[in-house]
């Protein structure tokens, strides 16, 4: 069974990993994939060794982090701010559900239509005629992604170039679909109503670690705590539930 290599970060490291445990449901001990990404110029905190080694360690208490070996992701860009209860019809109107996400051409088309269902008081998320959005990070209120179970919703956002959503809370099917597809990181704010603190177009940095997260708004100069992504992180990192299941041996057990 071929292991799927992760995409190397921009600074071109190569690495390999070998899961040391095969999992069988239901008593899954999740192997913790520990690796460090190179720090971007905007991250101020961690030392990173320049060589990347990935090894799966089994840990039932995966809460201990060794210094410098944190699971990290950093996203930087303009943010797009939304209110509460943004439902799936606003994220991708039903008339576009004829597009099949597993078809690459139609996947791209979904990206160009992300958030086209928003009321006209919002600015355009994807400029007309463009395939991708200029906004890498969405900041939203409560119950983001409510409504339908359509997977087209997180897919459209991911296809448009969104890397992470930082919302106050999520509707469960949308959250689950985001993790299963690996399309976006559905992060939750730990304090305050970010959708009131930030405005569309603000330059932000989102930093994610296993134990903590942070959103820095460079336009306002404020920092905001985020809840850690937790176990969903490695699944999204791997590229979704199937990729993760293959990597950790779960999929063989499940088809027994």
């Amino acid at each position, binding site marked *: 069974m071929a292991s799927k290599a992760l995409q190397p970060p921009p600074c071109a490291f190569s690495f390999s990993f070998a899961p040391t445990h095969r999992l069988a*449901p*239901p008593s899954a001990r999740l192997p913790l994939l520990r690796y460090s990404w190179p720090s971007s110029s905007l991250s101020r905190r961690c030392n990173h060794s320049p060589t990347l080694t990935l090894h799966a360690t089994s840990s039932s208490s995966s809460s201990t982090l060794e210094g410098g070996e944190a699971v990290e992701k950093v996203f930087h860009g303009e943010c797009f701010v939304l209110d509460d*209860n943004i*439902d799936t*019809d*606003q994220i991708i*109107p*039903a*008339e576009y*559900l*004829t*597009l*099949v*996400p*597993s*078809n690459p051409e139609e996947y791209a088309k979904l990206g160009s239509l992300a958030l086209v*269902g*928003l*009321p*006209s008081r919002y600015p355009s998320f994807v400029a007309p005629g463009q395939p991708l959005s200029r906004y890498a990070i969405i900041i939203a209120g*409560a*119950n983001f992604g*409510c*409504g*339908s*179970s*359509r*997977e*087209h919703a997180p897919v459209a956002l991911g296809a448009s170039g969104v890397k992470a959503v930082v919302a106050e*809370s999520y*509707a*469960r*099917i949308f959250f*689950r*679909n985001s993790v*299963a*597809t690996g399309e976006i990181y559905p992060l939750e704010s730990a304090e305050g109503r970010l959708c009131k603190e930030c405005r569309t177009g603000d330059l932000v940095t989102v930093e994610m670690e296993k134990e903590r997260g942070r959103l820095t708004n460079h336009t306002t100069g404020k920092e905001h705590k985020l809840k850690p992504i937790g176990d969903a992180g490695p699944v999204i990192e791997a590229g*979704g*539930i*199937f990729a993760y299941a293959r990597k950790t041996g779960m*999929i063989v057990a*499940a*088809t027994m």
Partner: protein
Amino acid sequence: MMDFLCQSLHYKNNFLTNFERKLLSSSSSAASLSGFLPDSIHVNKKEYRPSIRAVMAPPQPQRPPSTTGLVKQAMTMTEKILARASERSNLDTGENVWVNVDILMTHDVCGPGTIGIFKREFGENAKVWDREKIVIIPDHYIFTNDELANRNVDILRDFSVEQNIKYFYDINDRSNFRANPDYKGVCHIALAQEGHCRPGEVLLGTDSHTCNAGAFGQFATGIGNTDAGFVMGTGKVLLKVPPTLRFVMDGEMPDYLLAKDLILQIIGEITVAGATYKSMEFTGSTVESLSMEERMTLCNMVIEAGGKNGVVPADQTTFNYLEGKTSAKFEPVYSDEKAKFLHEYKFDTSKLEPVVAKPHSPDNRALARECKDVKIDRVYIGSCTGGKTEDFLAAAKIFLASGKKVKVPTFLVPATQKVWMDLYGLPVPGSGGKTCSQIFEEAGCDTPASPNCGACLGGPRDTYARMNEAKVCVSTTNRNFPGRMGNKEAQIYLASPFTAAASALTGYVTDPREFLR
């Protein structure tokens, strides 16, 4: 150990060593044991599982398990269903468990994507886990010239043929739905009418309103394409056990109230995120008095409160409905008396009034009579929520009582072929033998359309009754977020079929008591 008997529902996963067989057969209750041991026990050292996994005494007839005293912990209905489906004797809320799926449903909007994922992950020539447990129901974008929509139904057909799917409710001739004997219509109603919903089982669908089937006392919830692709190949899904909110509805149901009013009342109470990650259990004398279709309306909108699933305990009403629809054996489960619920809400149904959900949220509740100055442009009666036979009978009752014509275009979209046939065949009580269709015609409604999901979710531009302009509509559907039925500025008032019909007659949002007193 000797006092515990082995009870397992999935025998092929349980193997006993010779030693264990000897242990069990030498117990004094060996005679009753033999009823529980499989006919052939495979003694296979490779697949030996050292632990005997059951701590329940065998259930005595007419004595529900909760009274035997040997159940370790009290569980809710949802917990029991998931426990059984995951072959566990006990579960805690918040636990993630692998669950065996009884039915997987998909339709024309999410089916192609699910199939794509299935083939990509399991292989181009992979076979589904069970050709009899997948139900494929084209229903969303059927009567349209949209090429992609039509292609999507073709994809379903190709896959069903390739996999020899037993239940594929195909449509070939879009110009005349009646020329398609297999075609059913709206998936959730088709599932119920075709006997695929059974108490105690686990039903998943690639549609948020799959929770509709909870009316049958089963665990039913919506999932995305990726999860569904996984289930297609493995027959299993990883689920987190939800805590349960209990809604106890007692009191006699007033004759101007319908289940739609009850669920809108509840959603208005707890908000659109009030049941997120939770199960909603509906009990009480009012619920017991509801028909299966009314129970479906109740469970259908659980998702609008963010709920994971809804359940109504199965009873004689359920069993009567299922008679003739399914020959499969099923085993209902019920919440233990001492089960823990997150919250319990009590309602005196006799005191409730007809309500609507104003634009633009299903929890924007208001009394129908307080919206009587809202001028409307059209009325839509249809969808899985409000397009069943009893929904149309209710609307017909209002038109009959009034005897007048509607003041606005009134669109009627039956959920399934069977509903459509009922409209033309069933006599409406108190009408002297008239059918719904006759009453609708006399009231000046549009002719009942081809059964499908229709304009509930807008759909392709040429969908019948789609709102392509910024108008105001009273609808028996389930969501009213901006743009739901098409135009972003359009306004949708969610209502019961009684309220919808009454509003059609006046041209304003109207409390049905105007016509029922």
